[in-house]
């Protein structure tokens, strides 16, 4: 069965003053409708770039190779006009900080309606749909519509931005760091809202560095390190028994486990080594690890890990 959203061999490089920044290397993932994919990694690991490339929200100084397909249709060579229609209707983004994606000097009602209409709905349809969506998260369009962004709490802003993403009934929703800066109690609410989005049948991609959120959300998880996917598989399996040493060490750093940091630092994306990028910091490395880049090897549980320790299978 063709996956709804399929990324294959995606590589993204930025041409900057300091040199070429290899933000993503040969990434391949697939998401089915109703499925939840978590993209986890530290800042600079390539997770945001992966999400943005799916929507082709990239600056001018990039080189992209590989393929991103939505329902079988290749996205990377679509003309801008077609792409714009796709965004918002078939693919939607829930951006990182809700407040900054809303216009601070307009009342919410106006801008929400306008945004909905931009996705192809008539004014009446927009009003009805927005009312429905906001109602589902406990907000009243009439009350909220008359307010300005700064008059609402962070949690409310997040709910509005989530609702906005769903207006066009998209097939794919991408949430970029949905819990950055949120309180612990709001994290639970957000997790619930995200699962609800997934339950509607959309394919949900959640980018986050928050491991606790990831654990709560379940689904499948793709772990990124230094521009490469190093582990993919069911989230529950990852938290129970991570296969890749980076994943293992990362979980050890959780305060509720050992709170132990990983020595050293991730390599610079301008100077990626020609071998396993984690080798320098890996407690289990052997000779082969400092010679070539490992492929993604299959794991018994159905996942993949980019580690030579799992190569003999």
């Amino acid at each position, binding site marked *: 069965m063709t996956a709804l959203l399929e990324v294959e061999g995606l590589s993204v490089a930025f041409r900057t003053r300091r040199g070429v920044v290899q933000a993503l290397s040969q990434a391949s993932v697939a998401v089915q409708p109703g499925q939840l994919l978590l993209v986890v990694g530290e800042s600079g690991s390539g997770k945001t770039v992966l999400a943005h490339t799916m929507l082709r929200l990239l600056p*001018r*100084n990039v080189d992209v190779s590989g393929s991103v397909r939505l329902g079988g249709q290749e996205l990377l060579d679509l003309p801008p006009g077609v792409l714009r229609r796709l965004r918002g209707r078939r693919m939607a983004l829930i951006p990182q900080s809700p407040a900054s994606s809303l216009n601070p000097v307009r009342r919410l009602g106006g801008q929400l309606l306008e945004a909905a209409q931009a996705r192809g709905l008539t004014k009446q349809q927009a009003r009805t749909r927005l009312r429905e969506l906001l109602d589902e998260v406990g907000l009243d369009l009439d009350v909220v519509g008359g307010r300005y962004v700064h008059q609402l709490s962070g949690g409310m802003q997040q709910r509005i931005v989530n609702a906005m993403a769903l207006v066009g009934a998209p097939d794919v929703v991408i949430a970029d760091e949905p819990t950055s800066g949120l309180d612990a109690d709001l994290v639970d609410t957000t997790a619930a809202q995200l699962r609800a989005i997934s339950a509607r049948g959309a394919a949900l991609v959640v980018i986050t560095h928050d491991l606790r959120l990831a654990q709560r959300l379940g689904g499948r998880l793709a772990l990124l390190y230094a521009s490469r996917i190093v582990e993919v598989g069911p989230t529950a399996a990852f938290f129970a028994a991570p296969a890749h040493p980076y994943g293992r060490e990362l979980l050890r750093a959780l305060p509720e486990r050992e709170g132990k940091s990983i020595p050293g630092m991730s390599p610079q994306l301008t100077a990626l080594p020609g071998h396993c990028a984690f080798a320098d910091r890996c407690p289990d490395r052997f000779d082969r690890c400092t010679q070539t880049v490992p492929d993604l090897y299959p794991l018994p549980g159905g996942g993949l890990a980019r580690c030579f320790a799992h190569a003999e299978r």
Partner: protein
Amino acid sequence: MSASSGTLSASLRARGRLWQRLTDAVGRWPASVRVAAGVLVALVAAALLASIVAPLDNTAVDLDRVLEGPSAAHLMGTDEVGRDLLTRVLHGARISLTIAAAAALAAVAAGTLVGVLAGTLGGRIDAVLMRVTDVFASQNHFLFGVLLLVLFRPALGGAGAVMLAVGLTHWPSLARIVRGELMSLRERPFVAAAVGGGANRRRLVRRHYLPHLLPAVGLAFVLTVPHAIFHESAYSFLGLGLPAHQASLGNILADGQRSLLAGGWWIALFPGLAMLAAAMTTGTIAEYWREHLHPRWRSELEL
């Protein structure tokens, strides 16, 4: 100011870095800016080296060749007493540019000073300074300048009075910009962190505020120079600015007006072209600079 060991090697590296950054920067300029910069540099160089570059003596009067149009001997023609116009324009440009630069510098210095004082001291001082700024800003540039010239020309002489006139009419806008920048800078956590580290106000201004302000201040200077050139020319044209023997482009233009009736179109045209060149080149560079200063306003996304 790098804290690494070896002051000599550090300063050499710093200079190397600076040169590298300069060449990198120039490489990134679009063609239009490079052309403008080239023309401006040539213009400024020619003006500054007027005594060397000019073909003839500035005061050489040749009554045999009065009011001759452009020719091989006199590329821009001659004026009503036979002086070579090209020579006059070069010398005039030097005077005009020098006075304009000095005037712009005065305006920028005053504006920065007021803006920094108002922005850092706040409170009543800020209020008072801003009201003073408003008073100056609400004056009509030109008429106010004329008033200042009339009042101060006897005491300061033509050049001095023109610098004062331009300086006092152009500092308010920069003062407001500097103050605005400072007010937003003060809100940023890194200023709080600097205070937390023990910085007093003077150190904040010197180490943190001024480096942030310099690009905007520099830009304001570049933008004020064409204004200053026009003002000076206008005042001199009216006879209020530089005296006739200190021929600036404005004085030459005034002569040109008289000669126009006699058919001498070149005397009015060439000084005007020189002024236009100065204004357009600085304008182009300033526009690019201004866009460059606020990269966050540029959308880099392929939308």
